[in-house]
């Protein structure tokens, strides 16, 4: 190893993180878990609150289901379109390669004279 590499190894030696790093990470992990739990509790409380909220929730479900159906239809349409594009691209590529290959076969050499 040359001098530069030796110096680089020294310069880039591992360093200790600041004191308390591990504790701070664990504290963040615990806090993230609490937030997630609190979010779910909030949803439950909200749903228990009153009847009209239940109705609103049902309406929302219907809207989501409908938009889900519409989304799936649109996705299907786009998928069919993409599929047609792929087939078109492959047909064009194939036909051009076919022309080249057929000419090679007819001429009987990798690169022949003009027909």
């Amino acid at each position, binding site marked *: 190893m040359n001098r530069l590499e030796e110096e680089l190894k020294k310069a880039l030696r591992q360093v200790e993180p600041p004191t308390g790093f591990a504790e701070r990470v664990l504290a963040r992990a615990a806090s993230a878990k609490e937030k997630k739990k609190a979010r779910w509790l909030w949803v439950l409380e909200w749903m228990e609150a009153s009847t009209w909220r239940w109705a609103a929730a049902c309406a929302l479900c219907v809207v989501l289901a409908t938009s889900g159906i519409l989304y799936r239809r649109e996705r299907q349409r786009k998928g069919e379109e993409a599929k047609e594009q792929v087939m078109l691209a492959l047909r064009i590529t194939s036909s*051009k*390669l076919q022309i080249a290959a057929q*000419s090679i076969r007819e001429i009987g050499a990798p690169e022949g004279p003009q*027909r």
Partner: protein
Amino acid sequence: MRRFGIIFALLAVTQVAFAQDWDPGGALKRLAAKADKTVDVTLDQSMLQFASGFLDTKDPDQAQAKKVIANMKGIYVHCFEFDKSGGYSTEDVASLRAPLKEPEWSRIVNVRSKHEGENVEVYFRKEDGKFTGLVVISTEPTELTWVHVLGPINPDDLRRLGGQFGIPHVEIDDKPSTKKGESK
């Protein structure tokens, strides 16, 4: 929120990396402006993967297509038709060929039909011993086609390409050939 930002940034970088519709010297744009009819197919890796999910494996052509595109990173096809000959110039074709003179590209086929006026050139890009790109330039008096396939490409896939989609199968020799005449 920051997590979504990171995911979004990662996705954006991936999209940019894969969207590689190549326009050598701006030739394709010029040709599109001059052509009377244009057919463009631009499919990057994400579109190919999306389309693959809709290919019906019960249909032999579509099943074969699925195999061929499985590892591809993109297919870009541009066909230009002109009402009369002379619609495109030698400079246009030279612009398309220019980047293919780089060492990583090899022209493996150059077929010219003086009688029918059709010329087909096939170029392969090779990196680390693997085929990573294919370009086909086809010129006729009133038509020019540019096909760019971003690999990796398996020569077997190429043979499949030549033998499917309603087109009879023909062997393609992938040994490099010497140049013999240029078209137009």
